[in-house]
């Protein structure tokens, strides 16, 4: 899952094609990341939209060194954390939980590998402490490098590496 090539100069000029390319490359990835952090489908869509709106507003100030993927994941994660904080205050989180199906959304129903089902893996990942789940999702599922994941999470590379190692170990131990 390689990071797509992004033409930063074209994006800085808000070239329509460059904006579309970034949208196509990251919209589904951000939505998946947000869903796996716990967002419902509507909230995930809303936060994906807001992440891209912020990107285009910030685009003229992007530097050649900016890694757009890491930038977008950082914004999406911050928006999700902010949304969750406020949702607890105004009660919409409770409504969202009440309207959600009893089990987490299940991917392919077939066995994934020697008795390990997709649902089981989902449950194990969902049960990880949030700090471990975030870094695991970013690296294992979204394909970010550990360095980029550290940047998204505001951690040192070493701290991210340790959290990732703990997450992988916890998953290994929990799988049959």
């Amino acid at each position, binding site marked *: 899952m390689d990071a797509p090539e992004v033409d930063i100069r074209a994006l800085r000029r808000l070239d329509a094609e460059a904006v579309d390319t970034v949208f196509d490359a990251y919209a589904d990835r951000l939505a998946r990341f947000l869903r796996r952090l716990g967002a419902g489908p509507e909230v995930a*869509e809303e936060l994906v939209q807001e992440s891209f709106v912020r990107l285009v507003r910030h685009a003229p100030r992007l530097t050649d060194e900016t890694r757009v993927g890491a930038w977008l994941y950082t914004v999406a994660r911050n928006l999700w954390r902010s949304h969750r904080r406020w949702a607890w205050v105004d009660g919409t989180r409770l409504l969202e939980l009440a309207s959600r199906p009893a089990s987490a959304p299940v991917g392919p129903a077939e066995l994934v590998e020697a008795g390990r089902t997709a649902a089981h893996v989902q449950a194990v990942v969902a049960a990880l402490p949030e700090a471990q789940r975030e870094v695991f999702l970013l690296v294992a599922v979204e394909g970010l490098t550990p360095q980029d994941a550290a940047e998204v999470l505001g951690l040192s590379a070493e701290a991210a*590496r340790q959290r990732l190692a703990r997450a992988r170990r916890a998953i290994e131990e929990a799988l049959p």
Partner: protein
Amino acid sequence: MIPDDPNATTAEPAAALDTLAARALATPPLPPEARARLRAVVRNEARRVRVGLAEASLHAGFAVGALVWAAVAAFG
């Protein structure tokens, strides 16, 4: 606190676990209508920002022109 296991990041088992998780945690892409709606919002915002930037440079151009004119009038 769980001691860090240096073997846990060994490339091969970690890659197998990551592949397993990536498959299991795959979610369907955004529905086409939601995708189209989001894309339209993002395009409109990009257009709005582009127009704003163009206007800002125009005003900056006028300001510079006015300064040059004032300088020429004062010292020329």
